[in-house]
């Protein structure tokens, strides 16, 4: 019964909707862009989410989180996507879960409570080069004395300017490691991206890393799982955005009149809208299923994550392209918010691997 939302889930969804409508939305995004804000985060909204305990939904209850699952986080992410509110919910959740699991590191133990209540912000620094890859290559962790040294560049760290701590994936002795780095110790370049959501490059030049800050040097399985979780939370956000761009378009089709009738009465446009509706319904099913599997329901997490990202990458881009086209002239004006959905679609398409990446991965997982 993973598809039917429980009373608790419905209540989280309603709360998130209320908070996000009150403190987020495209107007905030527009302000961040016009003020060239280097952090790219809806600060007030993030504060409100923290105050309501929505930041630590899937973090351990004993440490101050809510002890719920990623499915619940996904419902909030959908709302962020719907309103295009830049907030590091997915990035923080996944990074914090990696830290919280590390009882062996005193640094991790010390950080965990502040990550659970959101007083400190973490993000996962993984992407290198111009395309997502499953394993780190460019950033390497090597032994130096009793500790380690970190070298190389991360090309696209979501909310990398706003975070307090980075969980950095690094190549290490033929495998992968995960390393905790305080933001102030990395060279950070904030990026001004089309979607006005926070993003940064991070450079490490022989950065000294204490043994205690190395979460694991045998990270392959754990990193794989974290990437799948981050991917699924991203698809939840994309789902929210795609539905909203679609909803606005259907609304416009009903109101805009040309040739004496609403343009929504033109059959060619109706059919395009109805196709998108089916596409979105199928998208919702795969995203929700993926998050349920991440929370322990039967199924392969990796397969579902790739299935969801392959679909949502295509769907979000397609729906926003159609939305702009169906809005006609006003669709391409900056005055309308629609362009922001299109831009965010393009960024999320690339993040964590595009549709082709995930179709290839899905086929490999299924042995062909």
């Amino acid at each position, binding site marked *: *019964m*993973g*598809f*039917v939302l429980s009373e608790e889930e419905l209540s989280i969804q309603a709360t998130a909707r209320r908070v996000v409508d009150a403190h987020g939305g495209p107007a905030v995004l527009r302000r961040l862009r016009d003020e060239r804000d280097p952090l790219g985060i809806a600060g007030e909204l993030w504060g409100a989410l923290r105050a309501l305990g929505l930041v630590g939904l899937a973090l351990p209850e004993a440490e101050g989180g809510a002890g719920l699952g990623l499915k619940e986080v996904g419902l909030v992410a959908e709302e962020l996507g719907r309103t295009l509110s830049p907030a590091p919910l997915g990035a923080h959740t996944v990074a914090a879960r990696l830290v919280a699991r590390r009882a062996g590191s005193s640094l991790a133990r010390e950080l965990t409570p502040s990550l659970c209540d959101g007083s400190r912000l973490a993000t996962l620094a993984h992407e290198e080069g111009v395309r997502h890859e499953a394993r780190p290559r460019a950033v390497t962790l090597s032994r130096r004395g009793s500790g380690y040294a970190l070298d190389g560049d991360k090309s696209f760290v979501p909310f990398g300017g706003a975070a307090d701590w980075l969980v950095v994936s690094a190549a290490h002795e033929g495998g992968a490691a995960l390393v905790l780095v305080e933001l102030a110790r990395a060279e950070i370049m904030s990026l001004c991206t089309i979607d006005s959501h926070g993003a940064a490059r991070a450079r490490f030049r022989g950065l000294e890393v204490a043994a205690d800050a190395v979460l694991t040097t045998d990270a392959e399985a754990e990193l794989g799982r974290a990437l799948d979780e981050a991917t699924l939370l991203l698809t939840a956000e994309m789902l929210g955005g795609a539905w909203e761009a679609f909803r606005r378009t*259907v609304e416009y*089709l*009903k109101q805009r009149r040309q040739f004496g*009738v*609403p343009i*929504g*009465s033109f*059959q060619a446009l*109706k*059919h395009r*809208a*109805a*196709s998108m*509706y*089916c596409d979105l*319904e*199928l*998208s*919702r*099913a*795969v995203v*929700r*299923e993926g998050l349920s599997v991440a929370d322990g329901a039967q199924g392969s997490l990796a397969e579902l994550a790739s*299935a969801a990202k*392959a*679909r949502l990458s295509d769907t979000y881009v397609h729906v926003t392209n159609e939305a702009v086209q169906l809005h006609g002239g006003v669709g391409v004006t900056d005055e309308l918010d629609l362009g922001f959905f299109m831009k965010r679609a393009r960024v999320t398409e690339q993040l964590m691997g595009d549709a*082709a990446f995930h*179709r*290839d991965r*899905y*086929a*490999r997982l*299924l*042995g*062909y």
Partner: protein
Amino acid sequence: MSELDDFRAELRAWLLSHCPPSMRTPPGDGEEVWGGRRCVFPSEDARRWLLAANTRGLTAPTWPTEYGGGGMSREQAAVLAEELRALGCRPPLRSLGIWMLGPVLLRYGTEAQRRAFLPGIIRGETRWCQGYSEPGAGSDLASLSTRAVRDGDHYVVDGQKTWTSHADKADWMFCLVRTNPSAPKHQGISFVLIDMASPGITVRPIQLISGASPFCETFFEGVRVPVDQRVGDEDAGWEIGKYLLSHERSNISLSRDAQSSVEEPLAAQARRYEGGAPGEPLRDASLRDRITQVDLDFLCNKLALRRAAEEAAAGRPAGSEASMFKLVGTEVNKRRRELKVALRGFAGLGWEGEGYLDDELTTTREWLRSRANSIEGGSSEVQLNILAKRVLGLPD
């Protein structure tokens, strides 16, 4: 729950003793039982199984016992379905009479009609076919022009129906006819039951692009139909016809799904033709990507179907999903079957005769047959119209 547990235990014991072992295997081609006066049972066991099922009304478990139904509660019927599945029992009978006409008679028929027709339907003694489509009335079903003119206590029916499945094997037809040509098109239609043995009926099978088919054209010339074989009021048949159609649509999308999930994966089929070890990526990158796309669409559709089922079971049906699943299901199915042919390359181009494996010829015929899936039972275009109107609320 103990009462239901008792029911389950008793039922299982009964099934084990009454369902012949040969009826607890999946039916092969042509081994399904559709009943009717001219029914040829595929085996003596099949006949025995139907007779046994009839003693408990298993073919129509929730219908009243007075007509031969099982008289079960919804819960009991669910238990029956579970037990039949658990034991691998074949359905004793497949029947348009049960799936489509029965609900109509129970809702709109007179008591006399129920007594006259339901027992034969339930026991599989009469086989029914559907007389809806006409050459000039496809998507625009209501524009049908087969006339029924009142003559005393009979109608005299003239016209032509098409796409009638198994009209050549059916005993009776439920049929939409025009009883009032001057009324607006939806208001002059009646729902009548016609004995296929009536004088003036000619049936001609339809050949499809895939070869022989169960479809027929049915011609009516001065066919006399007693007025008491009309269901519902005169000129009020359109609503009844639509009620019946809603059953057809959900049947199509669900059967598609069930059918494809047991097939050999496309990738495995492709590997048979291009070689390479399992686990390695298929060599033809473009074919591989097309396979993945279809596999993923199929997966997402399956999940959406499950979601709809769960929501419905939880008492929150979204409604209007039948159109979406009909649309998406048939379109994905078409692409899947196209791909099955494409991955066979030259081996997918055979029509008949030597040089091709049976599997290859079947695959090719099924691809051609699948082209009709997005047309029959409401075309994809009609489903898109319905979605735009009912779900999205777009104006006419």
